[in-house]
């Protein structure tokens, strides 16, 4: 007599955003296949439409603040934290596609697969943000990574792009090894992969015995390995070595997409793991993350000081920003979660904008991205210079930009949590960071041009830069609506509710 097969109840609303984006990506792949001609711009526009539809679906299924829905045996959860994150990720993906549409054809690397790949990666990110089961977390990481391996190497046959793809693949596989081994150990210790159940297991097993129960020890070791796996993905120092090379080699829109999207999603998953499953271990992971965040902020920003190459500078700056975001997720009481979401959006706007400006100045067949190209930009293209200055100031955290409030909320959350030393390291490193952001501004406004660079403008770039500038300044002056949005984005701590 074979065992009874029980089919779990399924609530499609929970996975509706993912379902939409994956279905759209699959259909788009087919549409692109049968589309005549060499011009692939239409695929790009259709992908943008797909993101818009997904956003609408997300808004439609959005649960009321404080409530959540789970399905598939509690493997996936739909809470307002997840939907807010999904919306931010969709915005990031939309920016990436908008700045790609003309970039690809200009650099002769236009292939229709690019857009479905971005959609698949975005779907993976959404999955990361919503999964409450370690297997699904792993699935999300892999889905995201595999698409990105292809995307980083998309600048075929440029050697640096292949190098980037290979480096990312090797380190990604390495990180995945840590991740899956950690997950296996956690399963060995707790007997479950469900985040809620792991949390419950730790609570009971730590409460019962005075000695450290062996199961909990396995979970602790496993949790450490999972953390290492994530550290690679979000490039915390000392796991950041790949970042500048990969960003430099990959197509610029992909680098932009990775620098905010991948990070945001991986951070969200890590946040959920730390808060839902490993909260009883806060005494262990808090100091570890504190040290990592400090190292990341200092090293990332100091390394960025030396870079004459803008793309590498932005890569190191993104490493530095990962440190600030880490502070946000470490202190994820309510204010930490909020500050994480706010910071992510502010950082996404500024960083996408900065990469978009970089694209306007990128020459066919060149791999320069020198700060020199920005020299004297102000005299020739004042609006572009002002936009770039806005992004740089926002990344540096100077008011009145959204970046300032991002930093403010992160530091406030850290102080509230009692991490005064981290606040101090944070402000110290942002003073260091001001150095290189300011250098770009100085070159743009106060120097003479080194060589004649004519920027390329097109609709996608202009709109992206425009939205990013307006968003950065508006949220810098009037963050109130955004604050209420992120404040309502509560992370689901239990099943149902």
């Amino acid at each position, binding site marked *: 007599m*074979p065992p*009874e*097969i029980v*089919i779990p109840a399924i609530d499609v609303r929970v996975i509706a955003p993912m379902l939409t984006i994956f279905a759209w990506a*699959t259909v788009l*792949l*087919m549409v692109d*296949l*049968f589309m005549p001609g060499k011009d692939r711009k239409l695929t790009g526009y259709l992908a943008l439409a797909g993101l818009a539809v997904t956003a609408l679906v997300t808004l439609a299924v959005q649960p009321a603040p404080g409530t959540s829905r789970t399905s598939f045996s509690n493997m996936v959860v739909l809470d307002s934290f997840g939907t807010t994150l999904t919306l931010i990720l969709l915005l990031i993906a939309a920016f990436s596609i908008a700045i790609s549409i003309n970039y690809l054809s200009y650099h002769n690397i236009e292939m229709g697969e690019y857009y479905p790949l971005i959609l698949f990666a975005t779907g993976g990110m959404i999955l990361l943000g919503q999964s409450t089961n370690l297997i699904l977390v792993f699935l999300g990481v892999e889905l995201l990574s595999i698409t990105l391996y292809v995307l980083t190497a998309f600048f075929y046959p440029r050697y640096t792009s292949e190098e980037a793809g290979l480096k990312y693949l090797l380190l990604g596989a390495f990180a995945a090894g840590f991740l899956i081994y950690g997950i296996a150990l956690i399963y060995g210790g707790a007997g479950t992969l469900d985040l809620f159940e792991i949390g419950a297991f730790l609570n009971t097993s730590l409460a019962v015995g005075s000695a450290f129960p*062996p*199961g909990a020890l396995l979970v602790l070791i496993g949790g450490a390995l999972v953390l290492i796996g994530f550290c690679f993905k979000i490039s915390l120092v000392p796991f950041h070595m790949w970042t500048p090379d990969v960003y430099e080699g990959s197509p610029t829109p992909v680098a932009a997409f990775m620098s905010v999207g991948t990070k945001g999603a991986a951070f969200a998953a890590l946040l959920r793991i730390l808060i839902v499953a490993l909260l009883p271990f806060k005494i262990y992971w808090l100091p570890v993350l504190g040290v990592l965040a400090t190292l990341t902020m200092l090293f990332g920003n100091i390394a960025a000081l030396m870079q004459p190459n803008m793309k590498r500078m932005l890569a190191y700056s993104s490493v530095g920003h990962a440190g600030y975001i880490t502070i946000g997720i470490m202190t994820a009481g309510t204010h930490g979660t909020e500050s994480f979401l706010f910071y992510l959006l502010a950082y996404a706007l500024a960083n996408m904008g900065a990469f978009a400006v970089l694209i306007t100045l990128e020459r066919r067949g060149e791999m320069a991205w020198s700060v020199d190209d920005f020299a004297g930009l102000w005299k020739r293209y004042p609006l572009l210079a002002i936009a770039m200055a806005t992004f740089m100031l926002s990344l540096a955290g100077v008011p009145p930009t959204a970046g300032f409030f991002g930093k403010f909320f992160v530091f406030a959350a850290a102080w509230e949590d009692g991490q005064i030393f981290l606040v101090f390291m944070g402000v110290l490193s942002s003073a260091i960071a001001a150095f290189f952001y300011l250098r770009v501004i100085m070159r743009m406004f106060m120097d003479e041009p080194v060589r004649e660079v004519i920027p390329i403008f097109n609709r996608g770039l202009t709109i992206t830069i425009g939205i990013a500038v307006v968003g950065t300044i508006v949220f810098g002056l009037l963050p109130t609506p955004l604050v209420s949005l992120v404040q309502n984005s509560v992370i689901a701590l239990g099943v149902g509710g």
Partner: protein
Amino acid sequence: MLQDYTPILVMFLMSLFVPLFVISLSAVLGPKRGSKRKLAPYESGMEPIGPAMRRFPVKFYVVAMLFILFDIEAIFFFPYALAFRDLGLYGLGVMGVFLVLLVVGFVYEWKKGALRWD
């Protein structure tokens, strides 16, 4: 709790030991009288042509990947066939989605010319 894994450890050690033992046994016991012919790489009795480590067309990799793809399809379908009745309509739907995705991939590679040899 950890003791439960002792058999696995034993098996691991055994599997490490046995091949090492056998290999070293042949090295110890076997007579070694090499000649030029004997030391040449074995290639089905033919004269060796060129170095063995050379590049061969990437198409082989594509075919290998296609093989894995359909291999996995088979792996999924066998257990499904066993549980066909129990899963009912739900199972049919899920396998339908799986099949659609597979077909999409197949159509994609077909159109991209991955199946064309020349």
